[in-house]
Every structure is written in C-alpha cells, then in structure tokens.
C-alpha cells in the first residue's frame, strides 16, 4: 500500500508506543478479563449480511475520518481552523454513532455503538482507505501530513458523503433515511468550508499552490475506491437501502472538478490503483489508529465516564 506521507522511518518512536499500548491491552484481555466484564473485553465480530456491511462502511468512514480530524485539535495552523476541524470531527462522530447503533440493530447480535466502535478487529472495520491516511501536522516527533492534504481530503469526502446522505434520504430503511436527513444539512457546511480552503490554497501563493498540487497527486489514487461497486452495493440497490457507489461518480467529478478548476489545479489524471479498506483490507496505518482508539476499552473493559 502506498504511504501517503512518504518516508516511514521517522515514525518509529510513535509506532513503537502504539504497538506497546496495543500489546498491553491484549495481554490484559487474555489474563484478567474473566473478573472484569469479559463480555466487553473480547473482540466482537459483526455479521456479514450485505445490509450490515453497507451501513458499517459508511459508519466506519465517518468514525475514522472523525478520529483523523480530531488529531488536529491543538495543531491547526490558525485557531479558527483548529476549531473548524474539531467541529467537523464532532459532526462526523455523531453521524458515526447513529450509524453504528443502527448497524448493531440490523445485525441483531445486540452490539451497541461503543462495542462496534472499540471492540472489532482491524479486518472488521470497513472504512475507505483514504480516511486512515495520517495527515496530522508534522512535528519533530511525529511526522505526518500537510494541511493541504487534510483540507483536500475533507473536500473529496464531504462531497461523497453529502451525495450518500442525499440518496439515503429516500432509503426504504426509515432510520437510515432519518440519520441521512440530519447529516445532509451538516455535510453541506463541510463541503462549503473545505472548498473554500482548496480554492484559497490552490489559487494562493506559489508555495500553497505547489503544496496543493502535491497533495492532489498523493490523494487522488485513493478516490477510486469511493466508486467501485461490489456485492454489497448490488444488494443495497436491489433492496432500496441506498445507492451503489458507482452511481455517485459523475456528479462527484463535476462538482469536484469545478472547485479544482477554480483553485487552478484541475482534475488530475486517473490512476489504476484501487484501495480495499471497505473490504476490510487496510493500509499499514489502520492498526495504529485502532491501538489509540481502542486502548482504554481493551485495558479497562466496559469502562465508562
């Protein structure tokens, strides 16, 4: 899998810490789970029904995107943007909560939003590979991405999600339609905000334009996955649950192309690379996100606050 940020060599201290945290959690699961809520310590496995996987793909894309945006808290280039990223993250987390709850109900195993968010194994997360790419601000201790990458990803995903919410408003699943009705209103602000930044940076200084062009080249290959259908999409369309992903591509390209033109960047050439996160096969970054997200639930099963 391509590494979006280039070299991984500098990431070793952080990676080692994340791995240690993961191992600590796993060791406790194995050793002391019996007397501390074993039912919540052990990994859960959602069912493979297409409707469950369809909802989990959206839920996990919102969840992991929210986690990545939240990493910018305290690291935004300006205070307003720090606040904006955390606001975007909060909306996405709220959408993820509603979708995870609903996925748990569709699945019928009695799993709630917390169990689905924190107790699955990596291969049972079905988010797009694009959202797991690290794009937090770089520092001496934690090499990451560029703000240009982060705002561009926000735009590409926000438009894709907005199209999903619009189509899901007509879903035969009333709860999914209700979640989408609310999320659509939020996504419009996300799209608008991200588009303004892409134009400001793309049509900005020589430095900002060069960084936006580099970001576009890095990110664009990951967008193929957003529009590749499989059996989950076929079922969703046949059951009037939601749109198949390929049906969203023309309108997405038209809207994104208009913004990229305004930003003097233009649509980049297509790539043959297709990432596979929504089938559960993730990039090397996914395990580190999960180590950070799951550590508390793994170490203190069933803990609440």
């Amino acid at each position, binding site marked *: 899998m391509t590494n979006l940020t280039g070299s991984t060599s500098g990431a070793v201290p952080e990676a080692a810490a994340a791995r240690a945290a993961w191992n600590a959690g796993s060791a406790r699961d194995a050793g002391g789970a019996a007397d501390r809520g074993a039912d919540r310590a052990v990994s859960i496995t959602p069912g493979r029904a297409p409707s469950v996987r369809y909802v989990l793909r959206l839920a996990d894309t919102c969840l992991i995107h929210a986690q990545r945006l939240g990493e910018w808290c305290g690291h935004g280039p300006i205070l307003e943007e720090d*606040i904006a990223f955390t606001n975007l993250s909060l909306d996405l987390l709220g959408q993820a909560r509603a979708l995870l709850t609903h996925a748990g109900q569709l699945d019928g195993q009695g799993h709630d939003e917390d169990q689905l968010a924190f107790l699955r194994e990596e291969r049972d997360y079905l988010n797009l590979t694009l959202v797991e790419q690290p794009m937090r601000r770089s520092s001496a201790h934690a090499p990451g991405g560029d703000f240009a990458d982060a705002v561009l990803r926000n735009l590409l995903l926000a438009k894709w999600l907005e199209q999903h919410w619009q189509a899901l408003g007509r879903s035969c699943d009333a709860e999914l339609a209700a979640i989408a009705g609310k999320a659509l209103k939020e996504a419009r602000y996300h799209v608008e905000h991200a588009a303004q930044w892409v134009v400001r940076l793309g049509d900005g200084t020589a430095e900002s334009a060069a960084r936006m062009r580099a970001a576009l080249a890095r990110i664009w290959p990951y967008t193929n996955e957003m529009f590749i259908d499989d059996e989950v999409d076929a079922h969703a369309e046949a059951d009037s649950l939601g749109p198949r992903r390929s049906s969203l591509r023309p309108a997405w390209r038209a809207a994104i192309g208009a913004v990229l033109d305004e930003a003097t960047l233009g649509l980049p050439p297509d790539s043959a690379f297709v990432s596979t996160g929504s089938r559960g096969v993730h990039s090397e970054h996914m395990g580190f996100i999960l180590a950070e997200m799951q550590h508390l639930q793994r170490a203190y099963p069933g803990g609440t606050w």
Partner: protein
Amino acid sequence: MSSPRGALALEGDDGLGCMTALARQGLPAAEPSGPTAAAPELQGAGLEGLAGRLAAAWAVLDGVPDPEVPALSVRDLGIVREVVVGEARTEVVLTPTYSGCPATEVIADSVRDALAQAGFGPVQVTLRRAPAWTTEWISAEGRRKLHAYGIAPPGPVAPEADGATVAPIRIRPRGVECPRCDSPQTERLSAFGSTACKALYRCLACREPFEYFKPI
C-alpha cells in the same frame, strides 16, 4: 458515548402503553414552535385537569435553557416537538439539533429534572430524528432573544437542490447583519465557532466580532 443516566429512547419504544387518559400536544413540522402549536388532543377521563397540566408542562419547558446558548429555552429552539401528559407520567419528544451535539444528553437530563421537580414525574424523554431539526423551528421570540444576546439569528435555509442538477459548491459566504449595530458590512472569520451551530463573523462598521447562528 451513551448517556450516563440512560432512558434516552428512540421513537418506537412504547413507554406509555398502559396509560388510560392522555393529553398530547405536538408541533407540525412546517411551523415554528410557540403559540401556533396544534390544539391539544385529549383522550379519556378527567380531561380538564390534564389539559391544564399539559399547558403547565409546556410552561416548565419555557424555563429550561439550552446549555450552550443559555439565552434560549429548549422551547424557543424548537427542539421540543411533542408533550404527552398522562395521570401518572409524562413523555417529551425532542429532536436533536446536530448529529454530534454534546448537549443533547444534557438537555434530556435538564428536561427530565425540571418536569420531575414540577411534579410531572416520572418523565420519559424520547428522541425523534425525522423530520430533521431546522433553524426554521426557532421561534420569533427565540430570534429576538438571540439578537439581544449578541448572536445574529439564522437567515433562511437554502432550498433543496432537486437532485437532477449538480449545484455548484458555494465558495463565497452569505451576508449577515451585525447584531450590535445592524450594519450589513460584515465578514466571516470562520464557518465554525464555539459550538457546532454557530459561525464566527466580524463587523466592519463597529469592528466587533460576533457569532452567527447558521441556517441549517
């Protein structure tokens, strides 16, 4: 993630099935909250008392502030969609403002506490997602309070695209009047402010920064 005090049921759970007499007053989705609400619907015996209790329950909700915009009551905000008062218990239907609004659970607790203290307990709070909350539901009184509090009230919500056409992505911000000096000469500093529901603006006439309640 879940409410520490529980009992935040989604609609569909029937917690009121055993009641014999009911007074119910809901709000039509297209109307703002306030005095234009539908006439109360009464079922069963002892109705005069229940109708009075229903009006009293709405009055209690007038005194429950939104935790993040305390100038407004939850009723001004238009998130209370229906109140059902029975002989022994009360149900309040709330529609959350934003998917991720952290105040939702605090509001549910405040509503439950305020009604219980006023003698309406036990109180069940139910969440209704659809139709989605819109700033069109903020009452005229709510808008006046926002303005007086220094927050520019929300403008009209943009109409839905018909789905057939590809609406261009809006790149320029909307014009908003300063709540202090009413000048239209303002600029947006950020589309996101101290809470999910507000944007940050600055007045170019009086030079004061202010918040704008985003139409949604």
